[in-house]
């Protein structure tokens, strides 16, 4: 667990995987959100502008999902081999959704006659993928039955009122990210429409954050004690207060027609909710029974990959930022290579 140098590699990796998953949620969140908004955007040119605003970057965004999954396999193989069968159906459906969403970026431009079908695929793929991610998260929060290093629950354990609620909440949240992104990246009619979407999504997101936070307390004793036992309660209250502050700044920014700040405050809401989840989960990786250290691969494996990750992650963040920088500013219609 803690080696002779006093370094806890499992804990470092838990932090890195948590970072990768958060990066995924935020980055792919806004482009999945745009997929969900797609059919509600009024005219075709605006739809295509919305799609083009993420076309150069969606692939990079989705790579964080592969890092999350691949990373879990690499450093927490036990968690990976328990979570995947437990969440079998939502994960398969998510993958199928991501297939339709991903190819739509190309196929949309390759046909006129069946374009509507791929646009539907873009919308439904994004919606299903998001819903399934939210459901998977909810199912994880509820806890996974484990016996003898393997999943020991039933095939429908993941489907509960709570997980459905987290699924819907994530859809609303991704729509908020997508709408505030479009508000930042586009102009005129599309921008105005995005602000409308964002306002509705902002209220709903805050509503769902509240509901789910309260609901969680009743699901698992650990969550209740973590948040409300003294002295935790005094300093953990910072999180809900910060959520309220960001929610207020988000709505205020939208009201004042700010372009960048609503997107940043929407991200902040995601970061805070995520921190809230981590606080509830710790020290478990798979609630209620597998801890970070139980799930971890041997230190040798953790160290070997950590060397690469410490060298490569800064470079990755560097050139990813560069790619965003190249495509900075407002997106214009018909600007793509197609």
């Amino acid at each position: 667990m803690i080696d002779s140098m006093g370094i806890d590699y499992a804990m470092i990796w838990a932090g890195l995987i948590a970072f990768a998953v958060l990066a995924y949620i935020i980055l792919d969140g806004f482009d999945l959100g745009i997929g969900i908004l797609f059919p509600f955007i009024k005219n075709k040119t605006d739809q295509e502008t919305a799609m083009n605003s993420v076309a150069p970057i969606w692939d990079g965004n989705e790579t964080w999902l592969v890092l999350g999954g691949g990373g879990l396999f690499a450093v927490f193989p036990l968690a990976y081999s328990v979570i995947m069968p437990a969440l079998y159906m939502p994960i398969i459906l998510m993958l199928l959704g991501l297939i339709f969403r991903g190819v739509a970026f190309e196929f949309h431009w390759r046909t006129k006659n069946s374009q509507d079908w791929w646009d539907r695929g873009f919308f439904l793929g994004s919606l299903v993928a998001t819903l399934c991610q939210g459901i998977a998260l909810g199912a994880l929060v509820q806890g996974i039955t484990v016996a003898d290093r393997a999943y020991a629950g039933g095939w429908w354990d993941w489907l509960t009122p709570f997980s459905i609620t987290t699924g819907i909440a994530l859809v609303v949240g991704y729509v908020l990210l997508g709408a505030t992104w479009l508000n930042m990246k586009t102009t005129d009619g599309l921008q105005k429409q995005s602000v409308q979407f964002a306002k509705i999504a902002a209220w709903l997101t805050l509503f769902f954050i509240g509901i789910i936070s309260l609901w969680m307390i009743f699901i698992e004793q650990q969550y209740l004690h973590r948040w409300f036992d003294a002295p935790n309660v005094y300093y953990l209250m910072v999180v809900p207060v910060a959520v309220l502050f960001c929610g207020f700044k988000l709505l205020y920014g939208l009201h004042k027609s700010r372009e960048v700040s609503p997107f940043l405050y929407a991200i902040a809401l995601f970061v805070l909710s995520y921190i809230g989840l981590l606080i509830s989960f710790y020290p478990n990786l798979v609630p209620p029974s597998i801890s970070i250290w139980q799930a971890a691969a041997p230190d040798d494996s953790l160290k070997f990959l950590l060397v690469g990750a410490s060298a490569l992650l800064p470079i990755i963040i560097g050139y990813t930022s560069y790619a965003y920088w190249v495509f900075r500013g407002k997106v214009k219609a018909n600007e793509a290579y197609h």
Partner: protein
Amino acid sequence: MELLDAVLLARIQFAFTITFHIIFPGLSIGLAAYLTVLEGLWLKTGKPVYLATFKYWLKIFSIIFGMGVVSGVVMSYQFGTNWSVFSDKTGPVLGPLMGYEVLSAFFLEAGFLGVMLFGMNKVGKGLHFFATLMVSLGTLMSAFWILSVNSWMQTPAGYEINEAGQFVVANWFDVIFNPSFPYRLAHMTTAAFLSTAFLVGGVGAWHLYKARKQGERNEVARLMFSMAMWMAALVAPVQLVIGDLHGLNTLEHQPAKVAAMEGNYQTQKGAPLYLFGMPNSETETVDYAIKIPKAASFILTHDPDGKLVGLDQFPKDEWPNVPIVFWSFRIMVAIGMGMIAIGLWSLYLRARKKLYDTPLLLRVAIVFAPSGIIATVAGWFVTEVGRQPYTVYGLLKTVDSASPLDAPAVAASLLAFIIVYLIVFGTGVWYTMRLMSKRPSPVIEVDDDSQTTVFLSNRVATTSEGKIKEGDQ
């Protein structure tokens, strides 16, 4: 029995999803390298024909790459969903290798792909070339890591087994550079280059064939065809040598696989080479055989009377499916021989300045357009079916690797994958073929002031495309 059925379904699911998947990254490796070469030549010479060819294949590349990404994400989760016991046991060894693949390859490709596809007017020429180069490098790094993973499963090395029954690492170098890895890496990357070359050559031949009928000269199609035929002439023979070395390595580490490839049921000296036949594992004979005496021994031991281990040295319940391995191997080798023949033929015609004007070669090249892809898939069938019944060769059996899933759950997901893959990738291949059937815009070679020509040829390309799009059914 029910568990066995679930395992069989999971195997079919893996075979189905990976067979689709390997086609796309295989072509992405080749096309990314091809695009890098084209853009480099354009920057160096300024000749518009290179840019026109680059733009032609860039669109095709973007569809193929996209399909590779989405089918690849499925693969990265498939280990956990259907093969969770395998994941738990091999995670400490294979996980970090895949982690390196994500960090050093996937991010690199994805990060620079946007600039490569959409950034031509946003960054300078040099930076754009750099982006193309990085995408290409990413595809190769990805091949490096994933083939290391696969090779370790075939020829495990550098590991120990801990008290939880997991494979753990004793020596990382031995794990990564396990005995079959260098051969498999060389064989597969060369296969990717050849597959792409024959695809490009087939498309070039198709347009040359049509241009010939209309009595016009198409520089872009000539460039595609010429470059592809150079690859056939120079690289296909190299692949034969690599393949032979890879086979010898397999003979050393997985003799049962080689015995299945050769249809060699009995251990014998001076084993024959079967050109054709129906391996029959019931009677342990090759029926309807056409064979060359002693040739298999000669190829594998370099001695006509050399002794070859047959399947009789292995328990029958550990035999791979002999007919599949036997036939996949023959398909792969036959295509490889055909490629070499085409390469030699093209050299002869090139020397006589008839490369572009021999309708028979053009027709053969068109037929051979998908040959590399077929050979690649056949090759993977040889190596993957041939290492059964193991996932980690000799150590972990396939039946002991699967998730504790019920057959209906696996059957349902398998059905969903089949339907979605046929729709999505069927359509994707159709769109790719439609792009490949579009006539490349004829480019007029101008030495000075090439910029104007490039500009003009772009506009020609745009308008001709617009017309085709309107008429598209």
